[in-house]
């Protein structure tokens, strides 16, 4: 598959990259690992004027501890995140999610920010221009219909990132920079919930780092993902859970997030606080997760089945976190 024509830029510093992004706005596509951007361009889902490779900018990659926080550079590879002792210890779900992305070669190329900033997917959208030329324009392509759910009044494309639900469960924040300004927002605020424009990042902004808190005491987190093959596939349902316990083994804090069940990862409300694992009504949490999820026939498994699996994977993630806590039972 050929790429569309574009000019290529390799800014030497973040400041230079931000100036370029400010100048060209949407016309400049940020490239780092290439595993998402290159495919989107090959399919002509995006045809930028300039491709801006930020991979070689110094200081944008790597993990570091800063006081009570862990700062992860945007260009840090998923391989590095999956293998980091610090992430395994402080945000196990994030390490698990990184390990489960695509295949090892892709995980070595793909970056943290690229994985977060991926577009929503749908079998009526992620196709080559030739296939799409035979389909009516759906909401995501500027039309007035949804091809996956006939008669619906909105887009049902699915956010299939692995890393974002795990980061959200672990309380992650993202830093968005533009020329002359920086904002730090909780990761959940990066998602609009609208399948057409799923990400609330401005056209002059670049995601430069992710910040994770370092939890204290007894805590653990886990990520579980449904896919057909044991490798390569995007999640068809996913759940991440963070659990912290009090000294008497009651749940002190719990954060549960479901992924691949709608246009954004969603935080599941629950009443687990103050309960032990035996008292915790996991089925109620699973029901809540189910009610937040969408299951439309637009990915490789039937929507109804994917939605049913939200219940199962929510419970698996919570139990996974308890298992990781050891002695938490």
């Amino acid at each position, binding site marked *: 598959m050929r790429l569309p024509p574009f000019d290529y830029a390799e800014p030497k510093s973040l400041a230079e990259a931000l100036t370029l992004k400010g100048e060209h706005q949407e016309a400049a596509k940020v*490239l780092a690992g*290439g*595993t998402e951007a290159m*495919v989107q361009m*090959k399919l002509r889902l995006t045809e930028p004027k300039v491709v801006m490779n930020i991979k070689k900018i110094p200081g944008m990659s790597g993990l570091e501890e800063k006081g009570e926080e862990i700062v992860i550079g945007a260009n840090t590879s998923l391989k590095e995140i999956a293998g980091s002792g610090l992430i395994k210890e402080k945000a196990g779900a994030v390490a698990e999610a990184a390990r489960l992305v695509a295949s*090892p070669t892709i995980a070595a190329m793909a970056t943290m920010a690229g994985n977060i900033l991926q577009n929503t997917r749908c079998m009526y959208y992620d196709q080559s221009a030739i296939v799409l030329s035979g389909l009516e324009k759906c909401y995501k392509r500027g039309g007035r219909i949804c091809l996956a759910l006939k008669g619906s009044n909105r887009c049902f494309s699915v956010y299939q990132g692995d890393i974002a639900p795990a980061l959200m469960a672990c309380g992650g924040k993202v830093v968005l920079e533009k020329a002359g300004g920086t904002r730090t927002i909780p990761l959940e605020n990066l998602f609009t919930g609208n399948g057409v424009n799923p990400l609330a990042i401005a056209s002059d902004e670049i995601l430069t780092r992710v910040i994770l808190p370092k939890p204290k005491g007894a805590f653990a987190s886990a990520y579980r993902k449904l896919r057909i093959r044991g490798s390569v596939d995007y999640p068809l349902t996913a759940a991440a859970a963070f659990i912290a316990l009090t000294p008497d083994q009651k749940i002190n804090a719990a954060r549960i997030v479901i992924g691949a069940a709608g246009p954004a990862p969603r935080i599941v409300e629950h009443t687990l606080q103050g309960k032990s694992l035996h008292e915790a009504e996991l089925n109620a949490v699973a029901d809540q997760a189910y009610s937040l999820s969408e299951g439309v026939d637009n990915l490789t498994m039937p929507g109804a089945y994917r939605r049913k699996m939200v219940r199962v994977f929510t419970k698996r993630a919570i139990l996974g976190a308890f298992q990781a806590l050891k002695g938490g039972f």
Partner: protein
Amino acid sequence: MKPKFLSLTVNDETHQLMVLPNRTLQDVLRDDLHLTGTKDSCGQGACGSCTVLVDGQPTRSCLTLAAAVEGQKITTIEGLAQGDKLHPVQEAFVNLHGIQCGFCSPGMILTAYALLQENPNPTETEIRKAISGNVCRCTGYAKAVEAIKSLAERGVSHG
């Protein structure tokens, strides 16, 4: 779109090329340098047949812009053998029937080579995980895994 002057180091040889910015490393390797051992299949990074090594790291050449790897050391399957003498990883694949149609072999052998460089004695699970991004429709993977395992067991140097 203007062509860019590029200096690419492939299999220890430096090539000076005029390349349009939208050409992938795969395009340049196959079409300009005629190194057709690097295969073109899915074009989306899923199948692994275009895998080459960039600074020793397995990389999907179909998802890599040629301009982005200037100055880095690129190794294709053609760079593994020494003249007529196959590399031990290639020999193991031949001897243990890890190859049938051969289309996935360059990518899988380079991935196996990089694995053995990083971890000279991998377990079967580690081998299976490492090549899990290299899709093979003939061998059922068992023979390829055996070939890589034979090298791990022999503990040979894969320099």
